[in-house]
């Protein structure tokens, strides 16, 4: 609104300025011949000056003066220069035209290309604006600017890390969590958070580095759930179903059913129990999947279970595709087969084992590993059927 008020004032002033000479009456104007006379006078002075300093001879001066005189007479006699000037002729159409045209035309053209409601968005204003009203991306960009300026701002890294995770920028998230850890020191939450993104980046497999982080987190705080969750997962992945079942059960006893990780934990417990031939406990009726978590930054770290599962599945699919291209990657096959086991997909696991057998027929140790894996898959399959 303020914009339109200021625009109206400017338009009014400008229109008034244009109208002023049009509506003014009275007075006289000089004729064009008066202007010619001024030039004549100036030329005469010049010639006299030149004469006085001997720049020209008196002969030349007289000739020049005569020429100027002839010119003056010629110009005053010609029609155009002595034409009378109407001081208050009919300006009506010019006045009306200006009043109507200036504001209307301006506003029409402006509305075609302008955005009157869009406020200025200077950097300073945006940096100090209320964060709640901004999108996550713009918050993130703001934080990134700060971090470029001051890369040792640990708190800054701590803020952006979960946001990266949520946006699926896993490598950035790893970097941000590492920086957080390095700059702010170790806490169980920071350790297990870094571990978590490492797991996600390695397609759901708990790597040695991640395992070490989780162990340190768990040692530091017996209350840290996340580290225990992943430690349990690691046990399952490392083919220690007994320990895994114990770990999962211990974890689940502490949990409320609302916690987002609970369904994943239960599914894993069931799978591990299956490996051991234990009948799974009947599924809890209250363990329905929670809705999407709050879309704020704090919640981003606690990515909801379905999203996480689907992310892991996507990564596993990626890995499978890579192995189709490069079947000699032994570690990759191990990881893929293990991942199918974790995800509870025995059919895919069997296919992967078969492919791996063909891919590396000469690797005796690997073939032995495949045999064991196949057995465990069959057990598990049998258990669930």
């Amino acid at each position, binding site marked *: 609104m303020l914009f339109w008020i200021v625009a109206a004032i400017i338009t009014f002033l*400008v229109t008034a300025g244009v109208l002023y000479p049009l509506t003014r009456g009275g007075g006289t104007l000089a004729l064009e011949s008066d202007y010619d006379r001024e030039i004549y006078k100036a030329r005469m002075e010049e010639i006299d000056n030149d004469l006085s300093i001997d720049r020209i001879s008196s002969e030349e001066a007289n000739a020049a003066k005569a020429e100027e005189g002839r010119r003056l007479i010629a110009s005053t006699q010609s029609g155009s220069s002595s034409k009378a000037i109407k001081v208050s002729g009919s300006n009506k159409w010019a006045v009306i035209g200006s009043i109507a045209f200036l504001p209307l035309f301006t506003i029409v053209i402006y509305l075609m290309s302008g955005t009157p409601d869009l406020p200025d968005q200077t950097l300073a204003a945006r940096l100090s604006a209320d964060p709640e009203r901004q999108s996550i991306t713009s918050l993130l960009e703001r934080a990134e600017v700060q971090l470029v300026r001051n890369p040792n701002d640990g708190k800054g890294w701590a803020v952006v890390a979960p946001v990266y995770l949520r946006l699926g920028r896993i490598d950035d998230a790893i970097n941000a969590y590492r920086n957080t850890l390095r700059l702010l020191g170790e806490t169980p939450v920071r350790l297990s958070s870094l571990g978590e993104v490492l797991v996600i980046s390695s397609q759901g497999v708990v790597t040695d580095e991640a395992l070490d982080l989780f162990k340190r987190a768990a040692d530091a705080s017996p209350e840290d759930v996340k580290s225990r969750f992943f430690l349990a997962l690691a046990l399952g992945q490392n083919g220690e179903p007994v320990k895994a079942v114990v770990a999962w059960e211990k974890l689940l006893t502490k949990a409320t059913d609302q916690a987002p990780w609970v369904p994943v934990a239960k599914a894993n417990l069931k799978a591990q129990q299956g490996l051991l031939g234990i009948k799974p406990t009947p599924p809890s009726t209250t363990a329905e999947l929670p809705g999407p978590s709050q879309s704020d930054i704090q919640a981003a770290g606690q990515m909801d279970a379905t999203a996480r599962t689907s992310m892991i599945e996507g990564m596993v699919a990626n890995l499978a595709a890579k192995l189709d291209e490069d079947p000699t990657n032994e570690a990759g096959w191990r990881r893929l087969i293990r991942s199918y086991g974790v995800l509870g997909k025995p059919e895919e696991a069997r296919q992967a084992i078969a492919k791996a057998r063909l891919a590396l027929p000469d690797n005796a140790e690997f073939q032995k590993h495949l045999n064991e894996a196949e057995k465990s898959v069959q057990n598990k399959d049998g258990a669930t059927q």
Partner: protein
Amino acid sequence: MIVELGHFALILCFSLSLLQSVIPVVGARQGNAGMMASGTWIAIASFLMLAVSFASLTYAHVASDFSVGNVWENSHSLKPLLYKYSGVWGNHEGSMLLWVLILGFFAALVAAFGVNLPPQLKANVLGVQGWIMTAFLAFIIKTSNPFDRLQPAPFEGKDLNPVLQDIGLAIHPPMLYLGYVGFSITFSFAVAAMLSGRIDAAWARWVRPWALMAWIFLTAGIAMGSYWAYYELGWGGWWFWDPVENASFIPWLTGTALLHSALVMEKREALKIWTLLLALVTFSMSLLGTFLVRSGVLTSVHAFASDPERGVFILAILVVFIGGSLTLFIFRSSELRGGGLFAPVSREGALVFNNLFLATAAASVLTGTLYPLVLESINGSKISVGAPFFNMTFGPLMMPLLLAIPVGPLLSWKRADLWSAIQKLYFAAGSALVIGILALAFVEGTSVLAALGIGAAAWVMIGAFAEIWLRAGFGKVEASTAYRRLKGLPGSTWGTAMAHCGVGLLLLGIVSVSAFQQELIKRVAPGEVNNFAGFEITFEGLTPAKGPNYIEDVARFKVSGRGVIDLEMLPTKRLYTTRKMPTTESAIETFKFSQLYFSLGDPEPDGSITLRAWWKPLVTFIWWGPVLMVLGGLTSLADRRLRVGAPKRAASRRKLVNA
């Protein structure tokens, strides 16, 4: 809101310029004083609106408002403040806004200070300015609106081209435009004269100060552009015959011709058609330059914009204005009566000589600039026309002109004795001869050609002041009389002498650099010492450093010799991080009027780097010459005789208005 107000002001100015195109012109036709006077007010209001608009764009740049597309494209929050300012016009949209701002500035100058102009002439001049303004504002609003917004706003800008992050750029385009666009005034005067049919000596007198002003700005702008290219591009050259340089140089040549021919028209009412044509052509060349630069039709270091829609639009403006004005010219020129008569050997004759060579030189530069475009559109061959072409055509055309400079002012009007004029110059000729011979004998490495060049420069510089010397009559009359005469000499005589002397100085710089420049290209390792051009140059090594938006390797050199000991010179290789763009910052050290110039190649992994060093004797004369020309122009402009009073009745009328 500030940004949108700027946008609104721009469009309000568009509406104003439409009114300015119509009301004063109709007023002049009908002899209506109110409508003619409204031109003055509209022109001033337009300029104010443009100033508001430009200020708000500047605000957006300085405050890094990336919701403005133009800011986002060309700025970055970390950019140094100075370049946030210069970034306003360091891009296509902003520079076009600056273009019209300056157009509006000149129109407002005529409106405010043209009180000595007859009302019809002034109204028509402002009306024609309104036409130009309308065309270019339509261009900006339609194709290049700097106020286009982005929603949502990106968080960080894309940064300004680092080559443009230079203090020289902060001044260069505004100056160039001031000159370029300034000649719109002479164009408007010419069209206005043709509209009213009054084309005579008085008209020439009214237009001359404006032509001189535009010429001063253009001279300064070109000189600064040249210095910018010299030290920023790191190639050690000061003029590249680049199409964009030519685009400003052609109007300079025709504008210089116009200054001289308008003098004949004013004093003798001769050369009327020619002067009128020059006034039209000069601005047409400015428009052509704008087209070449802004359409991106040429391959050039300066041509940053490329967008066919824009090119076609400016081409249309070009065709309408050049075609329209030339058509009007053809109709009017047949009605003109001949002016004063003069003999071939006379002041008039000398000025015709000047015009002939300047115009021919302008035509040859124009040919060389446009020939590649024409040839490509005819048979598809791609060629480049570079320095060899211009040296062969422009050089020989300039030589007779330079040699004639001292003679011209000594010839009297109507008919003169060439021989006696040359005799009066015996001192200048003798000194030039001696200086040339001395150079040949005592300065090592002087070729005959260089000696001739030095002699010619001396001839022009000394000869430039011959008129003043002779007019004062030193040696012939008593000193007090001579002093009285000296004081009585009009400012324009001093101005002419200074400007002509500036040309000689420029020539001396060019000859000296071409003949005596020394160059060294060498890969240097840390600790290495080289002897070059009387200097001992020690390379101390590379030091990494960090600027606000770039990282750099600073090469440290210690230079001794020619009166300095252990002078530090620090050329650097920079990498602008946002655009990943490397640049070389040269290091230049001035020794009186000569310069030592260091540029760098790529650093090698072993810490060595390729150094390119030049010793450029008297190189700064290339820019001191134009400075002297500008000072001469200013002296002439300050001459009260160029100013003509306003008639009494008009003056009293103005009082009435003010009261």
